[in-house]
């Protein structure tokens, strides 16, 4: 009997730790973000999300996604929008704030689960990695350059421009040259 109680307590403890590490939010709570006031002296960055690289590869796109609801006709999911830069904000923080404020669906893999020690963006606006061919997925560009590390390790400075681009061939159509061994 004593052993039973011990076993139940042990399992309860593990469950408590698991539940404690989980954050549950309702839909309205998740999208409830107060807009930062942009004052003339505040530091700011610009973010945009585009998927126009899909159009040349339209025949490879998952048939379930072939509608205007999921693929905007102009390829723009989020036009360039300014966000206020808080201390220590990374590209991921700004993206997370932008998708919440604009009610855009996003799925990511947390930094602790990723072998690269950074958050990995699996999908934005129902467009996932591999949704348009085996080399497709999301890449990001800051001030025209492709960083060689994950988006939650890139700390931003005032005035930088972030672009999230959907690629169908490992970033080459977006202008990244890392496949050829040269950096741009």
């Amino acid at each position, binding site marked *: *009997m004593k*052993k*039973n109680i*011990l*076993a*139940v307590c042990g399992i309860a403890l593990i469950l408590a730790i698991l539940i404690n590490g*989980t*954050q*549950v*939010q*309702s*839909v309205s*709570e*998740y999208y409830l973000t107060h807009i930062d006031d942009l004052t003339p002296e505040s530091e700011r960055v610009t973010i945009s999300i585009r998927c126009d690289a899909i159009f040349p590869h339209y025949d490879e796109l*998952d*048939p*379930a*996604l072939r509608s205007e*609801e*999921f693929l905007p006709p102009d390829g723009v999911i989020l036009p360039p929008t300014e966000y206020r830069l808080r201390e220590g904000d990374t590209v991921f923080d700004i993206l*997370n704030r932008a998708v919440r404020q604009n009610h855009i*669906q996003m*799925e*990511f893999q*947390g930094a602790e689960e990723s072998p690269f020690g950074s958050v990995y963006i*699996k*999908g934005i606006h*129902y467009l*996932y990695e591999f949704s348009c061919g085996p080399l497709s997925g999301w890449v990001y560009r800051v001030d025209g350059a492709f960083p060689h590390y994950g988006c939650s390790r890139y700390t931003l400075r005032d005035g930088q421009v972030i672009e999230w681009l959907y690629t169908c061939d490992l970033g080459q159509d977006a202008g990244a040259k890392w496949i050829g061994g040269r950096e741009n």
Partner: protein
Amino acid sequence: MDRRSGKLKAFGSYHPTVLMIYFLSILLIAAFLSNPVLQTEALLGGILFCATLQRRGDGLRDLGFYLPLFLMVAVTNPIFSHNGVTPLFFLNGNPVTLEAVFYGIALAVTVIGVLLWCKCYSRIMTEDKFLYLFGRAAPKLSLTLSMALRFIPVFLRQSRRVSRAQKAMGLYAGKSIPDRVKNRLRVMTAMISWSLEHAMETSASMKARGYGNKGRTNFSLFRFRASDGALLAVLLLLLAVSAVGAAVGVTAFSYYPKVSVIPLSPDALTVYAAFGILSLLPSIIEGKEAVVWRFYRSRI
């Protein structure tokens, strides 16, 4: 015991070639087509066929295994897959969506349907039938495969024996949970060495009997009768209708990002009907035999 039950059954008395083609086609369609109607049909066919193959008590015990499995698969999917247009709530910043819940349920239906069909397969396609089919062409591979396929049932039977023996010796006979877990672990360690030894002994014994040599006959002989040909023709026709329909895409269905409408065109309905009959075929044959048997007994 397995062998006898496999032979006494009406469906199990058909030629191994027909049975093999049947099980392969059902399993492939059930595992790879993601259409809720087809998945449900495969599950229902599996449940009915399993019910005819075993006693009622076994069915109830199975329920204790398959229901938790169903819930586990259905709940696990939305925790790890966040695609879908209808968020229910957010977990650590990722959405838990209605579509993922639906997909989880569909996945659970598929997994359990396939498991049930595999169970029926192991009841019907006994080792002698498997070796009859493939023993001549690829003796080593087919022996390995047949040993692998019957590994789990044999393992379970033997582990029950070991556990009973340990209990009789008074080891870990306590009723508390940790005692029972310890007992399981002890049995498990014994079973691992036993299964390795058993595999070696089986292959050695097969070799000693001249398995794989030229000119050896099979343990069981099967004749391809007219009824086998008839069943094979029906089965191939139904399979062709289902496979062509699925390949053309009349039953196409997707869960992400939005659950699509179940296709109900005449073509799709034909495919549903064909696959429905295909998956109910063994149960129909068993049912017919049972009715005939009743009728004959009533005449005595």
